[in-house]
Structures are given as structure tokens and as C-alpha cells.
């Protein structure tokens, strides 16, 4: 059995009087790809934000390789440096070039030599066919290219866990494929990934496990076959029916 990378124990999050996460337990093992599905407002994004310490949990624990990262004595920046995040809206820095975006954290947070950071960035960007865009600014790139740069930015320093928050939702349909292909390559390279997604076909083909969230709970989870082919609970069936037969 491979090692546990991420573990959530009884995580709760409440905004005002509204419970967004209710006693969420989740475990992700090394090299595992887990897809989070569910309607908007079901708590997917909040779950990712809690893991990245953007939101503080109201109860329960989040453990990253056994370290309790919800402990107030833990430095959040040190935790975030261990986790890669890719956002729906790319969030590249418009004032930096592609190379500047990709190497910023490696140089300023992880203390790499500029030469090392540049070399690794060039290698990774070259692999995905963006080797000629190193000095381009983000506004010169298509959405798909921007998102792939954002992924390289997140993985440059080999994070222990990669969080993908609906990374194809802001893309034109013809650009979705290139981004998803890249995620597939990451999985092949052994990355541990937790991704919130609306791309059910992609979740089915890439994820080792699918987690369906409903009303702030993990309502049902299992292999893609179990969830998509024979969902056990009515809410899961209803959600899938709505999203698959639009």
C-alpha cells in the first residue's frame, strides 16, 4: 500500500450560519488522482481552499503527509510551498513573462538558482510545445496556453500534492483538450492530484477515484465505473443525469 499524502478528518467549514463543509473525511494516497464532482455550491472549491489554507477550518484536521496543517503553530506559507494549485481563471501575473511566472516561486520561495529554475522551466515548457513562448507575456497567449503555463508554474518545484480547481471551465471548448492531455501526462509521471471538475468524461478516463459532493458532504465515492455506471444514491444519479444529458 502506498503512502497517504493527504488526509482530512472530520473537516467542517461554516460561513455565517451556512455549513459549507460538514464532517468531511477524505484520504488521498501517493500517485492517486481523485476527481471531485458535484453541483456549484456543493463545497468542492471550499474543500480545495481549506487544503491550501486559504480558508481556515472550523473543526477537524487536514494532514499533509502526516503533518497537521490546520495546527495554528504551522506556518501557512511553508505548507503552500508544498502544494501546487491551478485556478479556473489561470491567474498568471500579467507583468511577468512566461519564464518569470513559472520560475518566480522556485527563485523567491524555494531559493533555487536562477539558472537552475530557468533550465527546469525551459525543459517543462519545451515538453508541452511552449519553448518558443518563454519571453512572451501572458496576454499574448491563448487561454489553453495560459492554463498550461499555470500548470507548469504549479509543478516546477515538484509539489507533494496538486490541486486543480475546475481548470478547464474558463476555456473555449477547442482548447480544453490540450490542458487535459497535460493532466494525463502528469498522472503518468506519478503526480498526486485532487481536481474539482465538470468534465465527466475526463474524470472517468483519468481519475482513480471519483468523489461526489452534495450539500457539504462527501455523498458517495468510488471508482469511476462505480460512480458513473452504477451510482448507489438518488442524489448522485440525479446529478449525473442532469450533467450528462444536457
Amino acid at each position: 500500500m502506498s503512502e497517504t499524502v493527504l488526509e482530512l478528518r472530520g473537516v467542517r467549514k461554516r460561513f455565517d450560519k451556512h455549513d459549507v463543509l460538514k464532517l468531511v473525511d477524505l484520504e488521498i494516497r501517493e500517485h492517486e488522482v481523485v476527481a471531485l464532482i458535484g453541483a456549484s455550491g456543493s463545497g468542492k472549491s471550499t474543500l480545495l481552499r481549506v487544503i491550501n489554507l486559504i480558508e481556515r477550518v472550523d473543526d477537524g484536521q487536514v494532514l499533509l503527509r502526516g503533518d497537521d496543517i490546520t495546527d495554528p503553530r504551522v506556518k501557512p506559507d511553508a505548507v503552500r510551498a508544498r502544494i501546487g494549485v491551478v485556478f479556473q481563471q489561470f491567474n498568471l501575473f500579467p507583468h511577468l513573462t512566461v519564464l518569470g511566472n513559472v520560475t518566480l516561486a522556485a527563485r523567491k520561495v524555494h531559493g533555487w538558482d536562477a539558472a537552475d529554475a530557468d533550465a527546469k522551466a525551459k525543459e517543462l515548457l519545451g515538453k508541452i510545445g511552449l519553448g518558443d513562448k518563454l519571453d512572451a507575456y501572458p496576454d499574448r497567449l491563448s487561454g489553453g496556453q495560459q492554463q498550461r503555463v499555470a500548470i507548469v508554474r504549479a509543478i516546477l518545484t515538484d509539489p507533494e500534492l496538486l490541486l486543480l480547481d475546475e481548470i478547464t471551465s474558463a476555456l473555449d471548448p477547442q482548447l480544453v483538450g490540450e490542458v487535459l492531455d497535460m493532466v494525463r501526462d502528469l498522472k503518468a509521471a506519478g503526480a498526486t492530484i485532487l481536481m474539482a471538475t465538470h468534465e465527466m468524461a475526463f474524470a472517468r478516463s483519468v481519475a482513480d477515484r471519483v468523489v461526489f459532493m452534495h450539500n457539504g458532504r462527501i455523498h458517495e465515492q468510488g471508482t469511476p465505473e462505480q460512480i458513473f455506471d452504477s451510482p448507489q444514491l438518488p442524489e448522485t444519479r440525479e446529478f449525473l443525469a442532469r450533467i450528462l444529458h444536457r
Partner: protein
Amino acid sequence: MTDSSRAAQDAAWEPSALELERREYRRAASLRSAAVAFLSTAVFAALVAVGLSNSPGWDAVKHTFFNVPVAIEAFPAVLEGLWLNIRALFFATLGVAIFGTLIAVLRSLRGPVFFPIRFLAATYTDLVRGAPLLIVLYLVGFGIPALQIVPRMPAVFWGTLAIIITYSAYVAEVLRAGLDSVHPSQRIAARSLGLSHGQTLRLVVIPQGVRKVVPALMNDFVSMQKDVGLISVLGAVDAVRAAQIEVAHTYNFTPYVVAALLFIAISFPMIRLTDHVTARMTRREQNAGTV
């Protein structure tokens, strides 16, 4: 799944021992940082007080600038002068709001037909922003009356006019930046609804543009609040002039300090309000990013 047992746990959400311990730790940490802040402030204040009172000229300075009897005697005259500043400020604010907006709109007019107007407006803001306020005051306050084509007006009138001329240029630039920051798609959306150019500007662009630059505008207002004190150079008996007269009587500079404190007192609410509005806008923008 033990769904029913979970529901029961939910209904009675009592924070776990772990969560309570975390809250206690955070509370202690924030108490600790508050104590550190208080202590460092006290030490800093004590150092400044000791440093000042031990400087060789402190007694002379205290006598000349912080003389309580002189302050009490000068206070009524300076306060009366301040009333003139407040009235000047009122009219200056109105004037700047109207004139500044006009210049900003003229500068944002599109199309070659409007080139001369744009050019004039641009020249105006460039020249006026470059000129020292004091010199604008002299030019307007002594130059225009000397032409003898306008009826005689009190000095405060010319002083206020000079302030309006200067601050309109600054405010116009701030507003123009705001108008330019409204995304072109907003204009297109308004025009495609059939709104005219003027309606688009008035109902869609200006409301959004102004909102974005409110903190900068309020900052300009705070600045203007104290600069109305400069109308004293034209001879208007405002707070600064009244203080000057008192100083001439007593050879004691305390009345200037009194005037300064009064100016600070009237600007303080606006400064706090500016901070508040800026903080609220920042919060709102951050919220927009975290749906």
C-alpha cells in the same frame, strides 16, 4: 455509510477538544501581539518625550510654540478665521466637482472633431498642475482684478477661484483615469441597448468610473481642505491670517500651532472616512474574486 449518526453529529455541532485548543492558542497569540504592540508604542512615545524635553532649546521652543495662555487668547480669532476657510472649502468643493468633471469629460471625448477641445483641456491640466498653487493664487488674486473688467470682489473670492482652478486640474486627471478604467465592453453594451453617447457616459461610464477613484478623490479633498489656508496670502482674514496677526502682536508662534491643530481637527473625519471607504472597496474587490 452511517448517514443517520452523522446527521445527529451535525445537529449538535459542539467544537471538538482539538478545535477548542486551537481557538485558545489563537486567542493567546493575538493577545500576545496586542501586548507587544502596546509595549513598543509606549516605549517609542517615552523615548520621543524624553528626547524632546532634554534637548537644549526645549524650554525656548515650549515657550514660543506651545504657550497655553497665548493659545487661549488667540483661539477665538483663529476659530473665526477658520469659519472663512470652511466657507471657502464649501464653494471650492462645489466648483471643483463641476469644473473637474467637465474637464475630465472633455478630455475623454472621442473623434477628430473634438481635437481642439481635447487639446485645450489637456493644455489646461498640464499647465495648472505644473504651476505652484501659490503663484496661481497671486496671478488670479492680483492679476484678474488688475484688469479692471470685473467688479471688485473680496480676496476670499479670488482665493477660492484659484483653488478651484488648481484642484479641478488634479481632480479631472483622477476622474479621467477612472473613466478610462471602465472596460470598453461596458460602452458597447450600453450603446447596443440604444443609449446615446451622452446617456452612456452619464448613466453607465461615469457612475462606474467615479466609484473606482473615490479613494483618490477623497485624498484630493483632504489635501484641498488644508490648502484653503493659502488664501491668506491674498489678504483674506482666514485662520492662517488671523494666527499671523496674533503672532505679530505677541512675537509668539503658538497661534500658528493653534491654527494647524484646527486644520487637522477638521480634516480628521475625512481622513478616517477615506480609510474606511478604501478598506471597504478593497474587501469588496477581494470578495468578488472568491465566489
